[in-house]
């Protein structure tokens, strides 16, 4: 069974540009989460999808971040325009049911904004 995949693995962009990160959850997993770890800080929750609906987006830092999950399958996280403080590692995770024991994490996308 394929795990959670993320694309790209690395992205280097300039301040003011737009970047779109993609996450493909494990097939059949209704729950999809985005987290990020800014350099030197803890991993922080961004938002949670149940199928195509946003269950909780309380962790989204500001309106420069837009997450979508088309048809309840893969998800994208767009940052527009990117700022220096957006640099970090963006993780995606998925789990099959709402009260599931564990979340399965993807390898992360390392974003560097110059």
């Amino acid at each position, binding site marked *: 069974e394929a795990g*959670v995949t993320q694309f790209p693995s690395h992205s280097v962009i300039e301040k003011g540009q737009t970047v779109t990160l993609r996450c493909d959850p494990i097939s059949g997993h209704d*729950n999809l*989460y985005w*987290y990020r770890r800014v350099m030197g*800080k*803890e*991993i*922080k*929750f961004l938002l*949670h999808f149940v199928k195509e609906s946003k269950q*909780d987006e309380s*962790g989204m830092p500001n309106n420069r971040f837009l997450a979508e999950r088309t048809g309840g399958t893969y998800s994208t996280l767009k940052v527009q325009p990117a700022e220096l403080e957006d640099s970090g590692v963006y*993780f995606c*995770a998925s*789990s099959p049911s*709402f*009260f*599931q*024991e*564990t*979340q*399965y*994490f*993807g*390898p*992360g996308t390392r974003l560097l904004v110059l």
Partner: protein
Amino acid sequence: ELKVEQNPLFLSMQEGKNYTIYCNYSTTSDRLYWYRQDPGKSLESLFVLLSNGAVKQEGRLMASLDTKARLSTLHITAAVHDLSATYFCAAPVKYNNNDMRFGAGTRLTVKP
């Protein structure tokens, strides 16, 4: 707001020694998770502790949960170099909810 605190943040130990990593959380939580992350890799689930007094063991690692004290421990027995990694604990924000708050992580280095 739920806060999850780990200590120590950095741990350097000799092979063969024992040590404990502590994870404190600030509000009532019914579950506690431990993850391992190798450099440049994803988080790998180690343990899920679902109730007060839960204890789980896998190889040289043993995790426990005390919900009354709001404390979980990850005990390392007779450490080996392969255990070198960063270990995270995480707790759900709300009961019956999967949105998690993570500790800052403990970077463990096991020296031969």
